[in-house]
């Protein structure tokens, strides 16, 4: 079974700061990794994904994530955050034999202060 861990439940930064949201996974085989964003009162929205190739993947709104097999990680980063980036961010993993299931982390609440 795949598992995903987001070590930080809450992260607070100021507008214009850079931010890194951490995600670690455990699974021995080929794995699909993704990030989702959830604004308050809304459903989750897909942000970006990785399966193979360049370990740094770009998403919308300046977000990027970097895959590291050695660290079993897929951290999300943004160079300069905006107040509208305040949301809950979920890391997710899936494997080819997971019967089309995604396993979500518990989420990281990002608060961007003006």
């Amino acid at each position, binding site marked *: 079974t795949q598992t995903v861990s987001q070590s930080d439940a809450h992260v607070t930064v100021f507008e214009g700061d850079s931010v890194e949201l951490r995600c670690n996974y455990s699974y021995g085989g080929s794995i*699909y*990794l*993704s990030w989702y964003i959830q604004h308050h*009162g*809304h*459903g*989750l*929205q*897909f942000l970006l*994904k990785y*399966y193979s190739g360049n370990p740094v993947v770009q998403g919308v709104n300046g977000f990027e994530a970097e895959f590291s097999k050695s660290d079993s990680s897929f951290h999300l980063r943004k160079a300069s955050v905006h107040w509208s980036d305040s949301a809950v961010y*979920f890391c*997710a993993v*899936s*494997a*080819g034999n*997971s*019967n*089309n*299931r*995604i396993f*979500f*982390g*518990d*989420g990281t609440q990002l608060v961007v202060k003006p």
Partner: protein
Amino acid sequence: EAAVTQSPRNKVAVTGGKVTLSCNQTNNHNNMYWYRQDTGHGLRLIHYSYGAGSTEKGDIPDGYKASRPSQENFSLILELATPSQTSVYFCASGEGGGGWEQYFGPGTRLTVL
């Protein structure tokens, strides 16, 4: 246009009553999912479906049934609602071998009194 819609958006039910939550998707995805989201538990999978006529149990299926009468529609049924089922419920649709990209509805807030 929203590709995954849910109804109702808010529902208050009484203990022991029957509740049906509906989901419709226009993505033409084969896979659909029902999750509940509670503080401290993140997203938990209740039921999912590979296509019309199929339903599969997720991680917390007890107390819930699911129905997939068509490609577009996927319902979650609480035959005998209990206060512990008070939660926010999300429907999602997805495609792909690992189901790794899912599209979520806006959620239904259910309160069972």
